[in-house]
């Protein structure tokens, strides 16, 4: 559900660009804290003793590994989003991958991964509008990734993980479609009362595929990553 330019009014688009910048800024600052550790900086040497003043942040090896992993998740999400499957006569759907990314690398890293994929699609493939990138990031990286991660997290406490993944994935498509429809309706492009039910109806079906693909890809990704770790230890 990549919104092209023209569906959303310039004013709302600009507001959503601001919102997406705030989401990304917050996510990146969280990752920066998680991926780096503070080390003292030797500022000056006075005679025989060195005076340490201040600290600086250095990338930890765990942070480095997570960045490599985020790259693999971004690659997988990009590939999976190309796979349009038929859902109804004359209609197709494809994975959003927000819950997939959040389950594999966490909600904020997941939001950055989805945003990067959306930006690459917009820049190189004309998929999704330039001004609409803010709306697409809000719908898929905030609503479809961060918010649905917490649904997954809450359900996981009581239910088997695959059920939590399935439910959160389905909800992610439904909520992202709702958010997208509200933005289009508020822009005056089409009556909000017409676009919301139409979007929800088709995406309720697409969400089922999102759930199935997400479960499968989470297990494939985890098994291929662990296999890799064992290889390295040998």
């Amino acid at each position, binding site marked *: 559900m990549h919104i092209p330019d023209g569906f959303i009014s310039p004013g709302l688009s600009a507001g959503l660009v601001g919102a997406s910048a705030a989401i990304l800024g917050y996510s990146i600052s969280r990752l920066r804290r998680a991926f780096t550790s503070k080390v003292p900086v030797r500022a000056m040497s006075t005679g025989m003793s060195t005076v340490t003043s201040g600290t600086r942040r250095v990338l930890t090896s765990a942070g480095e590994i997570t*960045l*490599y992993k985020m790259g693999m998740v971004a690659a997988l999400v*990009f590939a999976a989003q190309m796979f349009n499957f038929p859902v109804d006569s004359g209609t197709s759907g494809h994975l959003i991958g927000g819950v997939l990314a959040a389950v594999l690398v966490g909600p904020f890293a997941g939001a950055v991964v989805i945003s990067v994929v959306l930006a690459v699609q917009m820049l190189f*493939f004309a998929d999704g509008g330039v001004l609409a990138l803010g709306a697409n990031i809000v719908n898929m990286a905030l609503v479809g990734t961060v918010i649905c991660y917490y649904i997954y997290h809450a359900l996981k406490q009581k239910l088997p993980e695959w059920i939590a993944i399935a439910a959160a994935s389905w909800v992610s498509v439904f909520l992202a479609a709702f958010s997208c429809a509200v933005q289009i309706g508020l822009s005056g492009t089409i009556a909000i009362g017409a676009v919301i039910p139409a979007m929800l109806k088709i995406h309720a079906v697409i969400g089922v595929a999102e759930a199935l693909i997400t479960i499968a890809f989470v297990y494939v990704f985890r098994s291929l990553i662990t296999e890799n770790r064992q290889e390295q230890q040998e």
Partner: protein
Amino acid sequence: MKKLMLFVLAVTVLASFLASSSPDGLEMVAEKLGFIEMASDRASVMPDYTVPLLPEGGISAALAGIAGVMISLSVFWAAAFWLKLRSRTRSQH
């Protein structure tokens, strides 16, 4: 990560040959409700996930897809490389 990369490339190539070319959920709704013509088309390097100059089809889509996969991957790997380099060089002072 080699096996994972092979899996991602397999998904890309399969998608290139098997993906449905029907409009997606949003496009279908826009067509049905009659606001699809409000979408502005624009030029791009690889429009519609195809490589220009190549005949349309699976191979063109696969090459465009592999390019997209590599660009997405390298954003993060470049970030890791750059941060590592920065961490190392400054600590030698």
